[in-house]
């Protein structure tokens, strides 16, 4: 009984010293954190930021045909699409595409279900604003025009 107690004290104390040695070893290693926002990380290719239009290489406009498949597929009802069929064009083209980013769950249903692959995920991850209105309506048509400039 006494021998067991003494052995327990000794092994217990030794375990404390082992623990201290481990943390001291970690003390001398470099930090693993990134000092955000002064430094940023590069996002992987498949990162899910909010959706944006894919630019058609030839026409420079969006590929969207306003078929509203994304609007139907969205679980959170965040997409509103409007389009018109212009003269001389085979399909509709989009006039209005509003995304309510405050409800979007980044599930990717809209990206997958689009028959012409007009949508893709952007790589914006450090969006911040003092105004909620900036995210309640994200206008993809305007965003595409802004990116063109």
């Amino acid at each position, binding site marked *: 009984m006494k021998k067991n107690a003494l052995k*327990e004290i000794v*092994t*217990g*104390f030794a*375990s*404390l010293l*082992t*623990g201290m040695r*481990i*943390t001291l070893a*970690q003390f001398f290693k470099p930090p*693993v954190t990134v000092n955000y926002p002064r430094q940023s990380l590069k996002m*992987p*290719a*498949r*990162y*899910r930021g909010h959706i944006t239009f894919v630019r058609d290489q030839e026409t420079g406009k969006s590929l969207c045909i306003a078929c509203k498949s994304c609007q139907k*597929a*969205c*679980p*959170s009802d965040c997409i509103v699409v409007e389009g018109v069929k212009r003269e001389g064009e085979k399909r509709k083209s989009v006039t209005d595409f509003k995304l309510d980013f405050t409800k979007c*769950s*980044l*599930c*990717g*249903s809209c990206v*997958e279900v689009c028959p012409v692959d007009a949508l893709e*995920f952007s790589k914006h991850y450090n969006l911040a604003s003092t105004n909620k209105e900036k995210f309640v309506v994200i206008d993809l048509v305007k965003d595409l025009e802004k990116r063109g400039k």
Partner: protein
Amino acid sequence: MLHKEQITNHSTDGHNETFVLNLGPQHPATHGVLRVKMTMDGEYITRAEPVCGYIHRMHEKMGENRTWAQFLPNTSRIDYLSAMHYTHAFVGAVERAARIEVPPRAEFVRVITSELNRISSHLVWFGAYLLDLGGFTPLLYAFDDRERILDLLEGLTGARLTYCYYRFGGLCNDVDEDFINGTRDFVHYMRPRLKMYRALVTDNIIFRKRLENIGIIDAEMCRKYGATGPVIRGAGTPYDVRRLEPYSVYDAFDFDIPHYPEGDCMARYLVRMEEIEQSLRILEQAVAKLPDGPHIGKVPRMIKPPAGDYTYAVEAARGRMMVRIVSDGKEIPYRVKLRTPSFANLSLFEEASRGMLLTDALALMGSLDLVIPDIDR
């Protein structure tokens, strides 16, 4: 250690007044929003009544007014720490109902991502549990390891926590070489880290004194309340859905089910640490055996499973997670029932914590690995 008999003796003499202490919805420890109304006699708990519902988000109701595919993002958010398992359960239930074939490559990738998710969930539990006990540093080491998993899964799916990666019939996109090599590297990286945790935490005398012989839950109590996962495996019963009701391709892998007979907090802790080791074994085998092929099977555009009642159970990080879907042939489910493990695990807290000291009761609650959104859905 003082026993439960002493506490009942105290209350019969009528001189001790008990007071109600509220372990409020806001916890210093990372359990979530759970309220526990404790009736205390000095330092001892006479009755601990958990009050849940503070984060009830009505996922099951949402299952009734969305199409089958529109419910997929919800599955990731029920228990966000082991999101892949929950998506797997729902997707598996619908595939079982609609008899959709899943190609083998997709099954293997599902196993790989599920096991990575299990490891990351156990790392969060490990860090948070030690934070509860007062050791702040292992939390950050665990989160450092978890970052590697999250980076792997972010490169694969695009999200860090709520993946929404599985689709009916397979996966939403295929894996690339980076992911396979990264998983292999991660397995090599993680094994020495587990040794480090053993030396820093598991063998530490202070930690052992906090956990050994505390919060004994025997197999009978687990059976009574339906507690599964590491809780029942820490009570000696090797109950694991991956062995008893094999799903996906788990019967192609060679892994052990860790179980310890003592039933105290230390046993549950050791079960989870061993599970990380076993998950690493499964990952190695899965990455080695990954077959080629398509990543998704033939699936109709709008899924309409035939009418009927279907279930699918998986071994989530916290225990047995079962999804029961009732379909009436339409594109919107009639009923989606989620049987979550934390709810059953929490229900035995009231009986198990009678007569315990407060610090020990908190050690017990931490060892049950409760995630409150999982309880409230």
